């Protein structure tokens, strides 16, 4: 079954336009897998096989994703046991040491990954930090977008969020219900797609 799941997810990826990597080995080699803070490659979806997986994309110096830290930490604790949370740092300039310091300062107890090759960025179809991605137990992309509607624009935050899209998506996936909407636009710091 494990193999099948992985294959299923690859098919899903293929439909999203990641064709080059599976066909052209030259390009594939250039794609650097996500790594943990010790530099070991990690596929968070495979690693959490059979569980709902949530990736939260952040960067150490994005004020919006930083302001979300307490909420992200709370959510990860709220769904502990049912959902595996990962923090993903997609900016290649952010070192493992800087990320460790960031985790400590912001009180994160969520496992962090670096994604300098943007494998997870592409897999989750994310554009900004903070942005959330939810994978179902079958490894299928179920939701990507904002955590909630706290921020409406740069510098324009509500006093408190009024909708909670990420929590709703997690609950729907756990309950095996459809997610609506499965995609929302997040407000935050653009993830650089420049080399």
């Amino acid at each position, binding site marked *: 079954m494990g193999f099948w799941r992985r294959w299923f997810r690859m098919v899903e990826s293929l439909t*999203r336009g990641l064709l080059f990597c599976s066909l052209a080995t030259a390009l594939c080699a250039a794609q650097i897998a996500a790594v943990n803070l010790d530099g070991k490659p990690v596929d968070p979806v495979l690693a959490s096989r059979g569980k709902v997986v949530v990736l939260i994309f952040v960067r150490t*110096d994005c004020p919006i994703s930083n302001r979300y830290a307490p909420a992200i930490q709370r959510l990860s604790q709220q769904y502990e046991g049912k959902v595996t949370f990962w923090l993903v740092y997609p900016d290649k300039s952010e070192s493992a040491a800087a990320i460790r310091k960031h985790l400590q300062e912001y009180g994160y107890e969520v496992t962090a990954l670096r994604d300098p090759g943007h494998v997870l960025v592409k897999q989750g179809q994310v554009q900004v930090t903070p942005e959330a991605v939810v994978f179902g137990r079958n490894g299928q992309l179920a939701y990507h977008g904002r955590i909630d509607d706290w921020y409406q624009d740069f510098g*324009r935050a509500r006093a408190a969020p009024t909708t909670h899209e990420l929590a709703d998506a997690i609950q729907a996936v756990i309950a095996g219900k459809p997610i609506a909407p499965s995609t929302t636009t997040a407000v935050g710091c653009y993830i650089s797609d420049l080399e």
Partner: protein
Amino acid sequence: MMVSFSQFLLSGSAGKILAFALATSAAVALAQSAAPARAEAPVTFNREIAPIIFHNCVACHRPGEAGPFPLRTYEEVHSHARQIAAVTRRRFMPPWLPEPGDLKFADQRGLTDEQITLIERWVDQGAMEGESPLPPLPPFAEGWQLGKPDMIVQAAKPLHVPASGTDIYWNFVLRLPLESPRWVKAVEIHPGDKRLVHHANILVDRTQSARRREEEPGAGFGGMEIRIEAETFEPDSHFLFWKPGTVAAAEPDGMALRFDKGTDLVLNTHLQPSGKPEIIQPSIGLYFTDQPATLHPMLLQMENDARLDIPPGERNFAVTDDFTLPLDVDLLAIYPHAHYLGKDMLALATLPDKSTKTLIHIKRWDLNWQAVYRYAAPVFLPRGTTISMRYSYDNSADNQANPHHPPQRVMGGNRSSDEMAHLWLQVLPRGAEARGDPRMVLQEALARHNVEKNPADFEAHYNLASMLQARNQLDEATAQYEAALRIRPDDAVANNAFGGLLASTGHGDEAAARFAAALKSRPDYFDAHYDLGIVLATQGDYRGAIEHFSAAVRLNPEDAAAEANLGSALALAEQLPEAKLHLEKALQLDPQNTLARENLEQLRERR
């Protein structure tokens, strides 16, 4: 900003970029604007972009400043390139609220449309470094921008800011350790971690009225709007304001501020939790001068909070105020102020010849970036000019800043969830004024305007009364005090001030009754104890005088005049050893105190 069509095909993730482009209408404009440039040389960091970033961004985007990340090198800028293109296109950065107009502000920020397009093209083309020589970073002063201050005063206690929660409005009461009056040519504000502080504003408290709100000395107190009491007319004539990117500057020549022994500065700050626990402990630097003030600007406050009663869902609630200048002034700076529902904020001047000047126009108010705006050159407004405040408010759910969800009825008030409609103008009255101090002429005209506007407003009557008292128009001042006290019969400050007027006109009994009323509503009111002591002593009631001077001394052990009067009253009551003790204490506090010195001499002669 957006990757152009040909590039995203190459990058191999069409789905992503297309979704991205559709999400933002600006992308379409970009694709069009970028197209004709194809033939030109590619935009590079070193040649085109660094000068824009260095001139407009690095003042804040460097370590220790308000920007969340530095932008000093190609690597630093490249890492945020797409974000920079997005925030400049939306004109979120550099932060600057006023619309461009005929009047220029000092420190005006903002990029031209050409500069914004250039940044987008640079990102589109891959954000290349280029091979031209990199221009040097402009020099930035580290630490105190104006050099080592003559005096540094730090908040006595730090404030712990939690990792999350709503914005915090906190007031730090800074006690100036001055022994004698000093003229100050500059105040530099170091608000603490600049990434947390949205603005900081200093209010001068000459009566130590803010201290009473601290739960323990030095702890400060919460609150977005604070009022500072002043019992005598003394205009707060300077804006002492910090916002991210503020360049500290000395006051113009001749416009020094005077701070005295016992002056407190209240630093009113707006802080935003950052996601991690933080500690804030602001400090200020004072720069002294030997040159007393020769020019006396003043702050005119226009407002119409009484009209603020905004129904839920209302998108365009208008509030206005119009004030006609009784004399010629030069307008130096302007400070529009509303809370979270403010939308469009306009200040207009209609000159006697009916021509108009837009003094400031903010089309999309944002409390987070409120600021004092100083004009690049003084704006002359002749006598008879009408200044109009034209504000509108959005209390609908579409206003993302709306503190209520769902929207609720909102009234004027001091809490951040209340609203305000204020417009402050710093003006310098021109020329000598036959009718007296021109600031008083202006303040009296404004006070009369406010009484007409809000006849039921206690403060309007009180302010007009104290202004008229200062101008020695005592009959009219009496009528205004009486009007104020009809609205708030128990108000301690008004009772005390009216008592002062009555005492000065020989109505001792009525004055004593007013002081007693003030003390009934505020038993720890230093001034009322002191004033009542004087009246009782004048009437020969030395026992009563001693009681109230003793209370005054307990409330403010540093006040030489209270000690001298207590000693004098004790001497008159023949309690000579105690009298000597207090007169000596007064001289310790203030060696120049004439009353204490003369009475001590008399005591020695009687021995």
